[in-house]
């Protein structure tokens, strides 16, 4: 049974075929990266996987289940969490509240018991908090716990989003350009964390990334796209030296 598989995925926006017949698989415990020039359809694939868009054709399989028609809020429950290229944190809430919200899929209390804040709700809250604290410790976010997200610098927000995705206890993590807007040191940190997520937490990662150094450091396999069509799949080195990929980036 493959862990995650996209089969002949395609989507049209009007007359534009943004993603055209893309197939790939992600094995359990690997970091799989999608690269490609701007407008190649990388983020569109992410939005297809997290079910924000409906594919025009093709299938998505996760742990043997067909998730092509699963509603978007169920995706997180199944164990797929994502980050966003342009940071979609809940800005007027504290970092802690942001991370606790990510525990939403693990809630076991109903509306009325929460209305009365019954002991069961209190126990649940402490349980969520313990899970969140593990992630805070893992990503070194202790000092920002009670800060409002609007007041956090960009680099910290980027890590906060990663933390929020981890708080859902995912099996597959989708990272949309984790290094965009980060400086060199922060990008290096990000590379370490992605390695740790893979090795220590055993979470598989599907990533879209432009920074080739980061891609080469952390990826097990790479898929190159151009104009929504796959060019090459393989190890970072193979893909980087593939003539089609070089032509897509450099022209000629």
């Amino acid at each position, binding site marked *: 049974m493959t862990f995650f598989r996209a089969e002949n995925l395609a989507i049209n926006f009007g007359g534009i075929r943004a993603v055209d017949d893309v197939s790939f698989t992600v094995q359990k415990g690997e970091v799989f990266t999608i690269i490609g020039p701007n407008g190649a359809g990388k983020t569109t694939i992410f*939005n297809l996987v*997290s079910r*924000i868009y409906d594919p025009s054709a093709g299938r998505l399989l996760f742990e043997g289940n067909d998730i092509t028609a699963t*509603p*978007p*809020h*169920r*995706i*997180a*429950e199944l164990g797929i*969490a*994502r980050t*966003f*290229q*342009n*940071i*979609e*944190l*809940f*800005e*007027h*809430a504290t970092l*802690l*509240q942001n991370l*606790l*919200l*990510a*525990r*939403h*899929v693990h*809630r076991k*209390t109903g*509306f009325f018991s*929460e*209305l*009365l*804040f019954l002991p069961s*709700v*209190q126990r*649940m*809250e*402490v349980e*969520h*908090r*313990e899970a969140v*604290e593990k992630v805070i410790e893992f990503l070194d976010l202790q000092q920002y716990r009670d800060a409002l997200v*609007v007041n956090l610098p*960009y680099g910290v927000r980027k890590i906060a989003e990663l933390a*929020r995705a981890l708080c*859902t206890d995912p099996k597959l993590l989708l990272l949309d350009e984790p290094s965009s807007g980060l400086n060199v040191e922060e990008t290096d940190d990000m590379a370490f964390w992605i390695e740790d997520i893979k090795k220590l937490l055993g979470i598989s990662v599907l990533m879209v990334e432009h920074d080739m150094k980061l891609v080469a450091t952390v990826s097990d396999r790479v898929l190159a796209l151009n104009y929504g069509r796959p060019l090459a799949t393989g190890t970072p080195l193979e893909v980087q030296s593939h003539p089609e990929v070089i032509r897509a980036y450099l022209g000629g």
Partner: protein
Amino acid sequence: MRFPFKTTYEQDIRLFRDRTTAVWYGVLVGVVLALPVLLSRYYIGEITWVFIYGICGLSLMVLVGYTGLVSLGHAAFLGIGAYAHAYFLQLGVPWVASVAIAVVITTACGIVVGLPALRMTGIYLAIATLAFAVIIQEVFTRWEAVTGGFSGMAVDKPVIFGVRLADEASFYYLCAAVLAVTLLLTRNLLRSSTGRAWVAIRDSEIAAQSMGVQLPLYKSFAFGYSAALMGLAGALFAHKIAYLAPDIFSILFSIQLLLLVIVGGLGSLHGVVFGAIFVALLPPIIAILRDSIPATMASVASATGVGVIGTIGRGIGGFLKMPGVEAGIFGLILVLVILVEPAGMYGRWVKIRLFFSTFPMYKRDSFKRQKSYMRSERLR
């Protein structure tokens, strides 16, 4: 400055941050309990309005301040609650049961009105709720068998478990208790997963959805809960106003409620209370000033012999007596709040509190916001 030393996670989910805060709330409860003894009937009646407006404001705060859904039709829910309660009382239903039925009816209406909200946001939702309010007002006018139409509907004093709350003070306590309980319940929701889901919907629907929040469900929750509170407020409102007529529940009332939550401070429960004090007490304050300013200035004029002061005093009194001045002052304050303090009275209170707790070291720029442009507009 106090630094709370945290040793357990339970500390962060407590109702009060620490003992000092709890003591201050205790003092507040004491003051509320003591007021009817200290003040005259007139003032007690006016403060009762603060409590009723507080419940209304709480209702709108959940929707606008926490879930980010704008409603211009909340007066209609208030009306539905008030008329339903009055109607069932007339039929001889006991008070508690009548309130419960009124709340259930408004909740149902709220969920139905919330259905279009599952697809609409911002100005479109505001217009949809406005249309609902206009329709409901028309229903109040035409459905004479239930509402009495234009001739109105008299509502008697509440009789709870055989006890008739005939005087101002006992009704004051009833309203205060209802506000306190609803505040507590709302706070409970806000500090558990439902409240976080609401905030998430307000700040980023797309991220909320990706984190597993079922948008339609939680938006319906918000609308239903908001309407339920409004229905409860409506029942008390009916007793307070004693005579229901369709033109009370107009668009102007809805706007006044919106004013309440914005002036109080969006996204805070303290803001609800501040806003309610403002909206409920400004008209009586204007009424008092209308009479007292000319009188005081006239006495100053006669004492000092400067006649101009008396003329100015009469001028101010005359100005405050003009029709529409009250609405004008409300509007002016709303504009000033949005310009000067977008976080409302609660935001100002937070600044004052920080000023005193960090006294010689206060930095004005603590609250400066940097403009940032990084939210994705593509997926909206």
